[in-house]
């Protein structure tokens, strides 16, 4: 059973007075453990596709299956649970809750899952050590660099052992060196823990790192290459 399967997925939305056909029928299947990038120019629909896969948005037509569940028309409450237990998110920037420390940010999703405080504290510390932020775990986001903040975001995304991590242009605000280290980290996690990663990006370096590159153009899949 594929981890993600979309069929004839369409999304239209109103931008001012104009209807935009953001996705025009996407059929894509992603298996557990993939390290895939969805690439394309601005407006090609990559973020929209990621949002639909992540249950953050609803499709105009077509379907999305995640880990066997049809999430296309799922109620908000159920989608919330799916996002909490099966998906990790890494956004472009301003990812973290600024009033919490790095450790508390990582603990946050575990808290939402109802994980006991001692356990989540230990797991957060452990994962922050793994991403190289053991010494900075008590700092708040404004005291961390952009790269460190994204590492915390990755730690928060994987600490609950999700089926999939969706990363929306995770390197967009990072210099190439920091971006490269972040990608190394994510690939390591992918290889060691079999966490599925899907990126939306227009960063060539991310495309280079990915093992599967899905190119979108005008809301359609232009190419789908496995390396």
């Amino acid at each position: 059973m594929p981890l993600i399967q979309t069929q004839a997925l369409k999304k239209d939305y109103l931008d001012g007075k104009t209807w935009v056909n953001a996705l025009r029928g996407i059929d894509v299947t992603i298996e557990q453990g993939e390290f895939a990038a969805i690439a394309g120019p601005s407006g090609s629909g990559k973020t929209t596709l990621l949002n639909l896969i992540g249950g953050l948005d609803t499709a105009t037509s077509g379907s999305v299956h995640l880990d066997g569940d049809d999430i296309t028309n799922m109620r908000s409450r159920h989608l919330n649970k799916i996002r909490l237990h099966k998906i990790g998110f890494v956004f472009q920037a301003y990812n973290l809750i600024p009033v919490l420390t790095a450790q508390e940010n990582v603990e946050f999703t575990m808290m939402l899952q109802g994980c006991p405080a001692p356990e989540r504290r230990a797991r957060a510390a452990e994962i922050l050590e793994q991403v190289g932020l053991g010494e900075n775990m008590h700092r708040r986001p404004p005291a961390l660099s952009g790269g460190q903040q994204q590492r915390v975001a990755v730690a928060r995304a994987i600490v609950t052992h999700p089926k999939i991590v969706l990363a929306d242009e995770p390197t967009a605000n990072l210099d190439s060196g920091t971006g490269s280290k972040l990608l190394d980290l994510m690939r390591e996690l992918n290889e060691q823990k079999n966490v599925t990663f899907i990126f939306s990006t227009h960063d060539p370096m991310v495309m280079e790192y990915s093992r599967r590159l899905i190119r979108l153009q005008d809301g359609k899949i232009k190419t789908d290459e496995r390396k």
Partner: protein
Amino acid sequence: MKILLQMAWHNIWRNKRRAIILLCAMSAGLAGVLFCMGFVNGWLDQMVESSVNRCEGHLRVMGLGYNENPLIEYAFEPVPDLAATLDEHNHVKAWANRVVAQGMLSTASKSYVVNVVGIEPERERALSIVAGSICEGVFLDSAVSGKALIGARLAEKLKTKVGKKVVIVSQQFGGDMGSGAYRIAGIFDTHSAGFDESHVYVLRSDAQELLGLGDRITETTIMLDKIEVAEAFAGELKCQVPTDDVEVLTWKDRMPFAVQSLEMSGRYMIPFLGLFYIAMAFGTVNTLHMAVSERTHEIGVMRAIGMNRLRLVLLILFESFFLAVIAVVVGSTVGWAIIACFGASGMDLSMLAAGMDYLGVERVLYPYLESSQVVGASVTTFVIAILFSLFPAIRAARLAPVEAIRQVG
């Protein structure tokens, strides 16, 4: 839950200036409400106490009907054995038989309608503040008849002074007119313009002679050690006096306006309280709306990673909870402290002396607060702050994650 509380606490201080302004406004408003409550409490109590101490007493035994229609025909013979009861009772501080009637006080040039009060000077010293309010001349002496005390304002109006003669004319018991000439022995100032303008004191024996009363009196005035026992003691006395001739009245029966004012004091505060609470509600809603708007992206991220709506509402409510707790603690402490301070030292309103005199209130007020008032105002402040924060909280919870995430900054 601890993380939510922690987030809420830190969120408040993300914009320190805004939080402090809101907290100052809420605290100052609550302190102001409490101050007004304390002031009104002190004012009303002082009004009652002043009237009681000036002349009214806590209890009066009067001829049946005299209270509604103060005619001299309602005068009565002193109730047998009443004196013994009053002398023996623990709560009775002082008492006196008095004669009170309306009359016309005249000098060579002017006349005024006054209440003529016939007193026993020794008993009156313990019963009222008039003896202690003599500002010129001396108090009455039971051994010296033909003397009168008049109020400072009346003396001023009549352009008379100590040593001058005045004539009092009044209707006698039985219908004839009686008159008498009295030399002014002293002038009193009780700080009540109305009272000082309208009362003249003479010896009770002089008044009885003027009014043709014989041994009759118009009232037995009783001062108790505390006002709270007045009702109970009045009940006891009612069993002892002949109820077909006389009646026992408490200060409440005599001063219905004061009683009504005391009962209505809560209602007087409603417009003021309403304004404060409305302002506070708007302040809370506005502040939290701004706070939510500034954090739209962050709320989107939290919703995306799985925070449900209920938890988000709780987060905003916790922020409001902390604001309300701080405002209530600071506001009630400041309000209580101000009232406690003035309650101990008194609020000197001498600069408003003329106005205070017209209202019959002492120039120094002693405000106080009932604990129920502090609790009531604090709980209301707290509940309104929480209730009105529901609007921004629900608004935040309704944000679609995908829309919220798009907003950066």
